């Protein structure tokens, strides 16, 4: 199947999701508010800590806010584009409704990942972008077009890391059926993305900076705006994203072989 066909399928799913959201406007409004409030919680934490200190691991208040904003953009994009789909993947594997996706004419990973989008998550990504722009303004940063383009590219590479981590976590359902709540592991892992990598030391640094990809997924894009482009960082992020994506796809495919439906 051609790439344009997949793009058309995704667009059709997006159109359906937006129409659905507009049908349940109150629900849409509430979820937008929910996501907005959770972002506000993270910003307030930064505000309160910096009332009492001027630096966290060498990061000033607005540098930290830019980092948190970057982390929020990634999580909002994940929520908007992939969360519901992958969350339901676990449930569908348990219930046997996953059969429905296997019957569709397309790559199973693509079909399970793009069935719907959540416009509330996508809408709130603009709020997160506003936080990044505000922080950059407060820091007196004037990134050029190339810096901004690199920031966007790095965000997409980081999004691959987020997606791969969630797919990997949910794929455990193929082996362990009783995994309700396992998707919470994604939030546990990416809680680290709101930390500067300098805040983690010793074994914690080895595990959460160099082992698991949570910290660099937000730190590398934020660093482009704050300190300028470093090719080695981009290479590091790209290699990590490629490796985690390959592992996630491999695990999903292995899991698929084990899948034997659940219906009678």
């Amino acid at each position, binding site marked *: 199947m051609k790439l344009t066909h997949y793009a058309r399928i995704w667009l059709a799913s997006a159109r359906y999701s937006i129409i659905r959201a507009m049908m349940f406007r109150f*629900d849409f409004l*509430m979820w937008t508010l929910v996501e907005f409030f959770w972002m506000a919680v993270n910003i307030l934490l930064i505000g*309160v*800590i910096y009332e009492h200190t001027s630096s966290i691991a060498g990061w000033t208040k607005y540098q930290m806010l830019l980092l948190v904003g970057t982390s929020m953009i990634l999580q909002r994009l994940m929520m908007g584009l992939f969360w519901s789909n992958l969350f339901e993947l676990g449930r569908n594997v348990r219930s046997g409704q996953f059969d429905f996706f296997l019957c569709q004419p397309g790559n199973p990973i693509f079909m399970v990942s793009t069935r719907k989008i959540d416009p509330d998550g996508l809408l709130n990504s603009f709020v997160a972008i506003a936080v990044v722009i505000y922080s950059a303004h407060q820091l007196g940063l004037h990134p050029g077009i190339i810096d901004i383009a690199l920031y966007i590219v790095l965000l997409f590479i980081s999004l691959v890391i987020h997606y791969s981590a969630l797919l990997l976590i949910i794929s455990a359902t193929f082996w362990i059926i009783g995994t309700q709540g396992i998707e919470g592991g994604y939030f546990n892992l990416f*809680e680290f993305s709101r930390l500067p990598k300098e*805040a983690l030391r010793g074994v914690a640094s080895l595990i959460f900076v160099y082992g698991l990809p949570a910290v660099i997924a937000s730190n590398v894009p934020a660093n482009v705006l704050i300190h300028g482009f470093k090719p080695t960082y981009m290479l590091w992020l790209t290699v990590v994203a490629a490796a985690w994506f390959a592992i996630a796809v491999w695990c999903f495919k292995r899991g698929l072989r084990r899948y034997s439906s659940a219906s009678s």
Partner: protein
Amino acid sequence: MIASLNKYWQSFLVGIQSNIVYRWNFFLRGLFSLTHLIVIYALWSAAYQGHSAIGGFSLGQTLTYFVVILTLQFFIGAFNEDYQVSEEIRNGLINQFLLKPINYFSYRFSIFLSARTVSGLLILIPVSIAYLFLRHDLALPHESWRLWLGLPALLMSALIQFTIAYCFGLLSFWFLEIQSFVILSYAIETLLGGQVFPLDLMPHLLYRISQYLPYFYQMYFPAAIFTGRIATPAEALSGLGIQACWVVALLSIATLLWRRGLRRHTAVGG
């Protein structure tokens, strides 16, 4: 009276059995919470660099506060009680309680207590692991009044936690889907209950306002008594007074919602 209590004791025992089924779920959830503690440790250690105290408290005292908050979450926090009530209303399962001499609130509260007994005991395992690493950093005050005033505060906090969740569950009499209400409320409770940062670090005026909200008494208040963030018995006693008022207010709201909700409720089928 004893016979009346006995039926809720029986439902507590049944609740213990059914919650033991989910022991791995609670245990894993507790284990995942250790990563949250690592984030807290990294963030606050970095914030304390160059400072011996923040808001008048040392790093050890702040870390102790977060460990106590984490432990209390598993002992008194409402997990999914709102969904359970909501599901029973939507599926018509509450109909059986309407026909029996059993108070639905008391029944649900006894199940809540059994669930927290199981999850509370299980969180002690990951907390013990955390203690091994943090034992030199933790600093609990030793005044005995903290225990005597902290325990009633803890019991009322559990009641407030449960009653708020119960009220949200009762919204199912009016709304088909309550998930967004619950998660919005959870975000507010997480922030104003002191789970994100100790509330005393907020600007003074905001802290004073928060003291009159029910969220203050959901988690922060008992944790602050136990960890020394509430300094004097007089301060704790005045807090207990406000907390008792909130317990009465929330129980009244719950009763009102239940009565009004039942008027809208339609039982179908046999």
